[in-house]
C-alpha cells in the first residue's frame, strides 16, 4: 500500500508530547557560560562611546564584546546591511549607528545569566541622537533622514508593473471602485522564544545549536561575520518550537558563534518572551491604494495600485516580500491593463520580514477587497464575478507571461462554494443563500468570500535547489534506508513527510527509514523551510536520490548511495520598467468562505465558521495538511481581528502575550472545514504542491467581506479590533453613540 496519502503518526509526536524532545533552551554543557545582549536605547543615533569597564569588573563576568570584536561587522539574509554589533571602532562604514531599537550594542558573557544581566546594566553608552523617521511616506520625501548610505529617500526597492494601455482602459469600465487598505504588524508568537548554545565541536568547528529555518544559510552568515571558511562553521537544529518565517533572519546565531569562537567555551542564551517580541522582525504593515474597473458582465478591464511597505531599519527579506505583494495585489485574475508601483521603505521602526504568506496576505487584502466591492457595485454574486476573471493555464498573469501549468483556481473556487452550504449551484450559476439572523438585534451575521494563490518556492530568479541523500544499507535484503536532509522541523511535520516520501521512493516500510537531519556537518543544503517549498523540493530531491540509490542497489553497490540536487524550472526577476517576468515555477490555490457574527454594539467580530478549500496537489499526509489549514486560519484570524502591535516612535509598547493578544481557545472558530483538493501539480513530487501558507491569505479579506455582508460597511484597516469596528460602524450610523 502506498505511504503517500496516509496520515502516519508523526515521528516526533511521542517525544514532544512526553517532554523528552530537546529544544535549544534544553541543551546544556557542563562548563557553559551565559550571555545577555545590550540592545539599543535609541531608534536612530550615533554611538559615540561605549564604556564597559564597570561591567567587566563585575564579579563573574568573563567578557564583554562590542563592535571592535566582530571580524566582519555586517550581516543580512538578502544584503549585509546590518551591523552584528553597533558601535565605534569597527571598519564597517556606518556600523557606529543604531537604526532601530533591536540593534545589538554589546554582549556580556558571564558565569550565570543573572550576573550577565546585572553587568549588562552597568554598560554606559553615549549616544548622539540623529533625526528619525517612522512613517514610510515621510521617509520617501526629500530631506527625510536617510538611514543607509546608498539608499536615497530610503527606498530599498521599487517594482513596477505596466501592462496594456492604461490611457484608454478606464473608459472601457462600466464600474470603477477605489479603496485604501492598511494592514498591520504581526508578531510570529512561536511557542519557543529564541535560544541557543555556541561551542567548539570535537573537530574544532565553531558550532551553534539553535532554532532556525535554514541551517546552511545560518552557517554562511556566521562564516561571513567571523571571516571563517564555511567548513569551520557548523549549525545544528534540534527541535524548533515554531518559526512561521520569524526565524529566517538571524537572532542569536552570530553572537553565540562570536562568543564561543573568542572564548573557546560553550556560551548559552535564552531570550525572554519580551525580548523575542521586541527583537525579532515582524510582518510588514503595508498601505495599498487601489482602483479597479470592470465591465457590466463582471469582466475586469483595469487595475491600479500603489503599495508602500514599512521595511524598518534593515532590509531583511523586504525586497522579496514586497516583490510578492507587487504581484499578489492583482489577485489570481486576468487583467488586461495594469499599473502597479510597489515600494519597500527603510524607517527607524522594527525591521519587517518573512512571515507566513510573505507579502501575499497584504496583497490579497486589497485585491479581494476590490473584487468584493466590484461584486457589490455590479450587483453580482462574488463567486460569479470571480468565475469570469480567474486565471487558467491559457491566460496571462499580471506579469505578462503564462502561469506554470496546472492552474486550478477555477475549480477551487467552485468547490469552496459548493462545500460551504452557503451557495447553491443552479444551471451552472452560483447563488448565495440567505443566512439566518440571531434574535438579538445587536448581533448580525454575514458571510464573506475570498480566494488567493501562493507561490511555492523561491521566486524572481533566486537560485532554487534542494539536495537529498538516500543510502540503502543491507546485504541480500534492505536492512535500513538512511535519508540525509537539512530540512528544518519547525513543527510542521516535515521530517515525518520526508521519511514517508523516502520509504515510498525506495519501496520499503517507514520503520526501515532513518533520518539524519538539520546538521550542516552531515547534510547538504536544502534551502529554507519557507515559501511553502519543503515538501515540493525535498520530495523531488528524495525521488531523484532514491532513483540513483535503487539503481546502485540493483548494481549491487553496498551501501547504495544516491545523492541528488533537485532544480526546478528557472524563474526570472521583474523587468525594471514593465515588471514582465516568469516569477515562479509552481503555485497552490485556495478559496475561503467565512461566517461571522458582528456585535454592532461592542464591535466584537466572532468568527463562527470557516470553509477552506485548498488545492494541495497531493496530500502526502492529510492529517498534517489539515493541521496546516487550521493553524493558518487561526493565525490569520489573529492577524485580521486581534493582533495589535503598538509601535510608538519605533518602540514596541506591548511586548507581552498579556497585551499583544493572539487567539486562544475562547476565540477560534467553532468549525474549520478543510476541503482538501488534489489536482496534481505537473512537476510536484507525487503531484504535491506547497500549501502551508496559502490558507492564511484569503481569511482577512473574507472576514472584511462578511462584516460588510452583516452591516453594509467596508472596513479596510486591520486589525478589526472591537474599538475600531464599533467606531467605524458608528461613523456610518450603525450601533451606539461613541463619546
Amino acid at each position: 500500500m502506498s505511504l503517500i496519502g496516509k496520515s502516519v503518526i508523526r515521528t516526533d509526536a511521542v517525544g514532544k508530547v512526553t517532554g523528552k524532545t530537546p529544544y535549544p533552551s534544553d541543551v546544556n554543557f557542563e562548563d557553559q557560560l551565559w550571555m545577555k545582549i545590550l540592545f539599543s536605547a535609541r531608534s536612530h543615533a550615533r554611538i559615540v562611546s561605549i564604556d564597559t569597564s564597570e561591567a567587566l569588573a563585575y564579579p563573574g563576568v568573563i567578557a564583554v564584546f562590542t563592535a571592535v570584536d566582530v571580524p566582519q561587522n555586517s550581516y543580512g539574509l538578502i544584503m549585509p546591511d546590518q551591523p552584528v554589533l553597533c558601535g565605534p571602532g569597527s571598519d564597517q562604514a556606518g556600523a557606529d549607528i543604531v537604526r532601530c531599537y533591536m540593534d545589538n550594542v554589546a554582549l556580556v558573557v558571564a558565569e550565570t545569566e543573572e550576573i550577565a544581566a546585572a553587568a549588562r546594566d552597568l554598560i554606559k553608552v553615549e549616544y548622539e541622537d540623529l533625526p528619525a523617521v517612522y512613517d514610510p511616506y515621510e521617509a520617501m520625501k526629500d530631506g527625510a533622514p536617510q538611514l543607509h548610505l546608498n539608499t536615497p529617500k530610503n527606498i530599498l526597492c521599487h517594482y513596477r508593473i505596466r501592462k496594456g494601455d492604461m490611457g484608454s482602459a478606464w473608459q472601457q469600465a462600466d464600474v470603477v471602485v477605489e479603496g485604501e487598505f492598511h494592514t498591520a504588524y504581526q508578531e510570529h508568537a512561536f511557542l519557543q522564544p529564541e535560544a541557543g548554545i555556541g561551542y567548539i565541536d570535537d573537530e574544532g568547528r565553531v558550532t551553534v545549536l539553535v532554532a532556525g529555518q535554514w541551517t546552511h544559510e545560518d552557517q554562511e552568515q556566521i562564516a561571513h561575520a567571523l571571516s571563517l571558511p564555511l567548513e569551520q562553521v557548523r549549525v545544528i537544529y534540534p527541535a524548533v518550537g515554531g518559526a512561521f518565517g520569524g526565524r529566517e533572519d538571524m537572532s542569536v546565531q552570530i553572537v553565540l558563534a562570536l562568543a564561543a569562537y573568542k572564548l573557546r567555551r560553550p556560551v548559552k542564551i535564552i531570550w525572554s518572551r519580551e525580548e523575542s517580541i521586541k527583537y525579532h522582525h515582524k510582518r510588514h504593515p503595508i498601505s495599498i491604494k487601489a482602483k479597479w474597473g470592470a465591465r457590466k458582465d463582471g469582466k475586469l478591464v483595469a487595475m491600479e495600485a500603489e503599495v508602500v511597505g514599512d521595511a524598518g531599519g534593515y532590509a531583511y527579506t523586504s525586497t522579496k516580500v514586497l516583490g510578492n505583494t507587487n504581484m499578489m495585489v492583482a489577485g489570481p485574475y486576468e487583467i488586461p491593463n495594469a499599473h502597479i508601483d510597489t515600494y519597500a521603505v527603510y524607517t527607524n521602526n522594527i525591521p519587517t520580514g518573512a512571515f507566513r504568506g510573505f507579502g501575499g496576505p497584504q496583497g490579497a487584502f486589497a485585491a479581494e477587497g476590490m473584487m468584493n466591492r466590484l461584486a457589490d457595485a455590479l450587483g453580482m454574486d462574488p463567486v460569479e464575478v470571480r468565475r469570469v476573471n480567474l486565471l487558467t493555464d491559457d491566460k496571462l498573469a499580471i506579469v505578462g507571461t503564462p502561469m506554470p501549468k496546472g492552474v486550478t483556481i477555477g475549480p477551487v473556487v467552485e468547490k469552496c462554494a459548493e462545500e460551504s452550504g452557503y451557495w447553491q449551484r443552479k444551471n451552472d450559476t452560483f447563488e448565495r443563500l440567505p443566512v439566518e439572523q440571531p434574535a438579538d438585534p445587536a448581533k448580525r451575521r454575514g458571510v464573506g468570500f475570498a480566494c488567493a494563490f501562493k507561490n511555492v518556492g523561491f521566486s524572481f530568479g533566486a537560485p532554487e535547489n534542494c539536495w537529498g541523500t538516500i543510502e540503502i544499507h543491507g546485504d541480500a535484503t534492505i536492512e535500513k534506508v538512511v535519508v540525509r536532509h537539512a530540512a528544518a522541523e519547525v513543527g510542521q511535520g516535515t521530517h515525518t513527510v520526508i521519511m514517508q516520501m523516502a520509504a515510498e521512493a525506495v519501496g520499503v516500510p517507514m520503520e526501515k527509514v532513518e533520518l539524519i537531519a538539520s546538521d550542516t556537518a552531515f547534510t547538504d543544503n536544502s534551502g529554507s523551510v519557507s515559501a511553502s517549498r519543503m515538501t515540493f523540493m525535498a520530495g523531488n530531491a528524495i525521488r531523484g536520490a532514491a532513483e540513483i540509490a535503487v539503481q546502485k542497489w540493483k548494481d549491487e553497490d553496498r551501501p547504495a548511495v544516491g545523492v541528488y540536487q533537485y532544480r526546478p524550472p528557472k524563474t526570472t526577476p521583474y523587468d525594471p520598467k514593465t515588471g514582465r517576468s516568469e516569477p515562479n515555477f509552481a503555485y497552490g490555490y485556495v478559496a475561503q468562505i467565512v461566517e461571522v457574527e458582528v456585535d454592532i454594539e461592542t464591535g466584537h467580530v466572532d468568527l463562527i465558521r470557516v470553509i477552506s478549500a485548498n488545492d494541495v496537489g497531493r496530500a502526502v499526509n492529510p492529517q498534517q495538511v489539515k493541521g496546516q489549514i487550521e493553524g493558518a486560519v487561526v493565525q490569520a484570524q489573529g492577524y485580521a481581528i486581534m493582533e495589535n502591535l503598538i509601535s510608538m516612535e519605533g518602540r514596541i509598547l506591548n511586548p507581552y502575550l498579556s497585551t499583544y493578544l493572539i487567539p486562544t481557545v475562547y476565540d477560534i472558530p467553532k468549525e474549520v472545514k478543510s476541503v482538501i483538493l488534489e489536482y496534481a501539480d505537473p512537476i510536484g513530487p507525487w503531484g504535491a504542491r506547497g500549501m502551508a501558507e496559502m490558507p492564511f491569505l484569503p481569511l482577512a479579506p473574507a472576514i472584511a467581506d462578511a462584516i460588510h455582508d452583516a452591516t453594509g460597511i467596508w472596513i479596510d484597516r486591520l486589525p478589526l479590533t472591537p474599538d475600531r469596528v464599533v467606531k467605524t460602524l458608528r461613523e456610518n450610523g450603525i450601533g451606539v453613540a461613541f463619546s
Partner: protein
Amino acid sequence: MYPAKFDYYRANSVEEAVKLLAENSDAKLLAGGHSLIPAMKLRLTQPALLIDIGKIDSLKNIKANGSLEIGALATHARVAASADVKKWFPALANAASLIGDQQVRNFGTIGGNIAHADPASDPPTVLIAAGATIHVRGASGTRAIAAEDFFVDLFTTALEPGEVVTKIEIPNLSGRKSAYAKMSHPASRYAIVGVCAVLSMEGDTCKEARLVVGGAVAHATRLSEAEAVLKGKKLDAAALKAAADAAIAQVGDDAMGDITAPADYRRAMVGQYLQRAIQSALG
C-alpha cells in the same frame, strides 16, 4: 522573575493570623495566591513574611440564613457552584463563574479578591450592587464595612493594617431582579467592563435600581445618575438609553484605557453593558 526572599507561616485560626499580622509590620496574608504571587514575582510587592490562611476551614463556609454569608476563603469555583448563592443572588454566582479560567476559580478566593481590589475584578461590582457588608477582624476587634465604602481606589480598600476579611454578608434580595454583564479581556478574562444591576420592580415600573460599574474605572462605583434616571420609570428602550447616557456622563474622564480597550471605548461600553445587565435582569 522569582520573588524576593520571604518567610512563610501557616496560620491555623483567624486569631493567630491577626496576632501574626500585628507582630510583623512587613507581613501579608496569603489566600489563593493568584494575585499576590504574581505581584511578588514581578517584585511589585516584597513582603518579608507570608501568613498562609488557606487552611482555616472556618473561613470557607457558605450559608444562607436570613442573610447569605460567604466566608472569605470560599473559592470562586465554590461561589459559582453554590446552590445557596445561585438561589439567593444569582448575579454573584454568574460573576464568579466568569472569573479567569478554571484554575483561577479553583484557587482564587472571594476574600482575597476584594482585599486585593483590582479595578478589573468582578466580585466588587456585584457586592456593591447587592448592598453587601464586609466583616473584618483586627487586633482591636471586629467591624463591618458596607461594600460601597470598602473599595477606595486602585488596589486600595478601607481595610486597616492588620485586619483580616472574615466573611461577606449579602442581605435578603428576594423579590429583586439581578444580573451581571461583563466584557472579558481576551487573555486574562478580567473585566474590561462589568456592570451589575439589582432592580426592585412593581409591574413594569422600577421602584429602585442599584447599578454598579467595574473594570472601566479605578474602583467599582455606583452609577447613581443612571439609578436616578430609572427610579419610577417603565424600563423601556428609551429609559434604558437615558440611563446609559447618564452612566456614560458620570464615568466621563474617569474611564481608564489601555491598548486592548482605550478609554473612549470603555466609556461607551459602560452604557452598553448597563443596558445588557438590565435586560438580562428583567429576563
